């Protein structure tokens, strides 16, 4: 604080003796340099001095009041207090004597005074003491302002915290609790269920028509729909339970201390209420529906919050699969759940495999029946996980369901062509060919053809050496699209085979127009052929049909010599099976020792 500021402060002398007051005032003005020193002669005029002219004006400032003790002691104290409340510091002026000593003095200080000046005083002493009092006043005000501000800030913070806490736990659009809040509450509910024997249930709701409304009417209508759904939940769900919006069109309701029958009843009620709800959009009216999954919190079961949530989610998934607008209670034995679980374990492994290349190929020889020559191999994908090898039958269904199949197809094509390119070609031998299996979804893969073309160009491999296989069922169910793919591949120069031929028991009629080169007879006919005349008959007729349409035939699952011999007699062109060679990681060009004739075969059964 500068001296100038100090001198500008308002000082008021309160003394009914005008001469005394005047002497002090002029002393302060002349010696102290204080510019605004005023004088009032009574308590009343002091109050008036402090009261603003109009009630809406700010109070008139007064920093320091010099009070003469000429009125009764109680009055002095109350005036001190009153001044203190208004932010004025007071200094008491008293005659030298026994009053205002000890306890009395301390009461004056308690009331807010900062100093007592005893008359008669020396002029030289007064000025510094008044200066000091003003400085103390300044300190006090600063401290008070800080305290007030601090308190304001704390209050403000608590209000903000309350709002923030609310926002963190709630969904902005619907005002329902959000997923984070549910997880917290779920933990508690599980503990209650287990320790206090309070059963409960978690409902997981998926609004069936939401996507339709959102896509055709726009997000605004979608949001309105969600608010409507939230309103239904709020009305139907007691406040002691928790209604949650998990995300987009998924909601959940946590029912605590509720028996399973009541929970299922409520789920049914909710389903009905949502089914009855008609949403008025801009373009028309929509009837909603909800698939509701129920997971029970049973006291007997120890569960994690995440597990319970995923159970409810899975049950909801099952409800959706089974036709929507229904309630389904979680059951670990549901086939949909089992499939989901398998997917859940396979998907991360598949992703990992696609990233790190833990897929590998094995090659099974396909032998020409006529002379046992082997220049053709089928490439078979394997997934290696911790040294364990998984066959495609285990993970391909999951890959198909979870949309990873395209990438798997691409990987197989790329890896097989690469492998083919590394094989050293001996001039006088037939070039090695390779069969590559494609999934039923391959024709939907826009990248597959460009990749194949590029690969062939880069490696310089003749397309004749590639043969693609697709299962008969996949081909027949999407005949047109598959034909297109087959034609494009054949235009490129690749060959095409129908895998598992005969297993679909489809009519052979389509074959007339289906441009494949090879039919691969389903192994199940081949395995029992020798024991079952019907199977043999079927194989014969398939071979006849194929040959009459000018297509080659491969028989798989050839597991013993007798079958091989019989198949050759029937006229099958190529043979494949454990008898002729198991799938292996290396391609070894060979003249199959097992099939150089009956005698040689008899000698080489150990292969």
């Amino acid at each position, binding site marked *: 604080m500068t001296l100038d500021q100090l001198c500008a402060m308002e000082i008021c002398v309160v003394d009914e003796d005008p001469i005394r007051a005047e002497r002090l005032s002029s002393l302060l003005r002349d010696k102290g340099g204080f510019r605004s020193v005023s004088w009032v002669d009574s308590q009343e005029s002091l109050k008036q001095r402090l*009261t*603003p002219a*109009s*009630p*809406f*004006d700010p*109070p008139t400032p007064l920093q320091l009041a010099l009070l003469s003790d000429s009125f009764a002691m109680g009055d002095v104290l109350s005036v001190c207090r009153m001044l203190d409340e208004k932010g004025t510091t007071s200094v008491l002026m008293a005659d030298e004597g026994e009053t205002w000593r000890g306890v009395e003095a301390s009461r004056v200080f308690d009331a807010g005074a900062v100093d007592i000046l005893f008359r008669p005083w020396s002029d030289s002493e007064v000025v510094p003491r008044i200066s000091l009092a003003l400085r103390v006043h300044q300190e006090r005000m600063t401290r008070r302002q800080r305290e007030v501000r601090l*308190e*304001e800030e*704390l*209050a*403000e913070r*608590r*209000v903000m*915290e*309350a*709002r923030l806490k*609310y*926002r963190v736990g*709630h969904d902005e659009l619907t*005002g329902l609790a959000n997923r984070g809040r549910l997880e917290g509450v779920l933990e508690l509910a599980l503990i209650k269920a287990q320790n206090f024997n309070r059963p409960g249930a978690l409902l997981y709701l998926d609004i069936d028509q939401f996507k339709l409304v959102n896509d055709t009417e726009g997000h605004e209508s979608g949001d309105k729909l969600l608010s409507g759904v939230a*309103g239904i939940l*709020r*009305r139907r769900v*007691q*406040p002691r339970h928790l209604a949650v919006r998990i995300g987009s069109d998924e909601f959940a309701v946590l029912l605590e201390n509720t028996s399973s029958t009541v929970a299922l009843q409520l789920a049914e009620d909710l389903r009905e209420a949502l089914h009855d709800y008609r949403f008025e959009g801009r373009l028309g009216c929509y009837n909603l529906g909800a698939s509701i999954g129920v997971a029970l919190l049973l006291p007997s079961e120890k569960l994690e919050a995440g597990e319970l949530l995923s159970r409810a989610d899975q049950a909801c998934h099952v409800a959706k699969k089974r036709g929507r607008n229904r309630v389904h209670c979680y059951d670990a034995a549901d086939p949909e759940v089992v499939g989901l679980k398998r997917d859940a374990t396979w998907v991360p492994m598949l992703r990992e495999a696609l990233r790190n290349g833990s897929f590998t190929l094995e090659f099974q020889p396909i032998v020409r029946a006529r002379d046992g020559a082997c220049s053709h191999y089928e490439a078979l994908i394997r997934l290696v996980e911790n040294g364990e090898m998984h066959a495609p039958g285990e993970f391909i269904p999951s890959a198909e369901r979870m949309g990873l199949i395209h990438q798997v197809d691409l990987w197989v094509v790329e890896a097989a062509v690469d492998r083919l390119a590394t094989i050293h070609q001996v001039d006088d031998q037939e070039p090695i060919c390779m069969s590559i299996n494609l999934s039923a979804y391959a024709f939907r893969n826009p990248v597959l053809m460009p990749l194949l073309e590029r690969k062939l160009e880069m490696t310089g491999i003749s397309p004749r050496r590639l043969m693609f296989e697709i299962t008969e069922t996949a081909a027949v169910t999407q005949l047109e699209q598959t034909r297109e793919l087959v034609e494009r591949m054949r235009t490129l120069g690749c060959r095409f085979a129908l895998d598992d031929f005969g297993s679909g028991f489809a009519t052979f009629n389509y074959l007339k127009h289906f441009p494949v080169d090879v039919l691969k007879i389903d192994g199940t006919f081949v395995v029992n052929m020798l024991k079952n005349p019907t199977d043999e008959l079927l194989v014969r007729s398939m071979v006849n049909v194929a040959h009459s349409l000018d297509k080659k035939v491969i028989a798989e699952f050839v597991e013993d010599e007798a079958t091989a011999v019989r198949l050759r007699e029937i006229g099958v062109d190529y043979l494949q099976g454990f008898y002729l060679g198991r799938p292996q990681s290396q391609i070894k060009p060979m003249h199959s020792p097992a099939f150089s004739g009956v005698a040689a075969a008899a000698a080489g059964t150990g292969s």
Partner: protein
Amino acid sequence: MSYLHASDSSFNFAPPPLSPRDLVRGEITLSSLPALYHELNRVLETPGNDAQDAAQVIERDPALAARLLALTNSAYFGLVRRVDTVAHAITLIGLQELRTLVLTMVVVEKFKGLPNDLEDMTSFWRQSMVCALVARGLSLKAGRASTAGRLFSAGLLHRVGDLLIFRRLPELAHQAFLRRRDNGFPLWEAEQQLLGLDYGVVGAALAEFWRFPPELVELLAFQQQPAKAKICQRHCALLCLAVNAAHGRDVPLGDASWRLAEVSPQVLAGVRVESDRQVAEVARVYGISC
């Protein structure tokens, strides 16, 4: 060991929950009343001051003086002769009632223009005005003419806490509103569940901050639970009936309020009809459109 214990507990610091005071404190511009009200308070508290002194203070605000005269001449007081000086009006009203009337005028003046997305302010003030008139009517019927003014003020300001809640905790207020709409809870109960406080206690905190008479603070605080009141249980009960009537809710006959208020449902029904007649005029005096 004791040292450890002490430090443990000091680390175990949990922020105190949101209190009604917090809502009042942060919003200093909204929470502060014009100096006039405090000055009037001071004049009235000083022994020996009379209507003339109070009139001097009020006449410094011409708008307030006009309002006070309009109110005195309205059907609300039902005087035969026309009153045309503030001092005369004050003599008729009485100094104590004057204080609460001026108080409500000042508060309503302060809050009536407050914008708000959560509730239609016209119906908000209409509801408050109905509540005020019913509370006053009940008080007169119950033979408590001396406190009619106080009950009127309490009724008019019974939801003043909500204005603060709406402004400072809009999301939570909205949620409470939804809970009332969808679950059928009374608003104050929905607020208690969600905020841990309701418009009553916030209003009481505000009243305390403004240094309203302690009876008025208690009326606001316990307007829904008169049995908890300490100073003026019966008035609280009367206010409780008025509030519920204004909110369109029937208080079940077995409720403690009826017993504490010592009035019958028939009386309430009569007062209700009468208040409907007065509401437009008195609202006009307060500058509220409804």
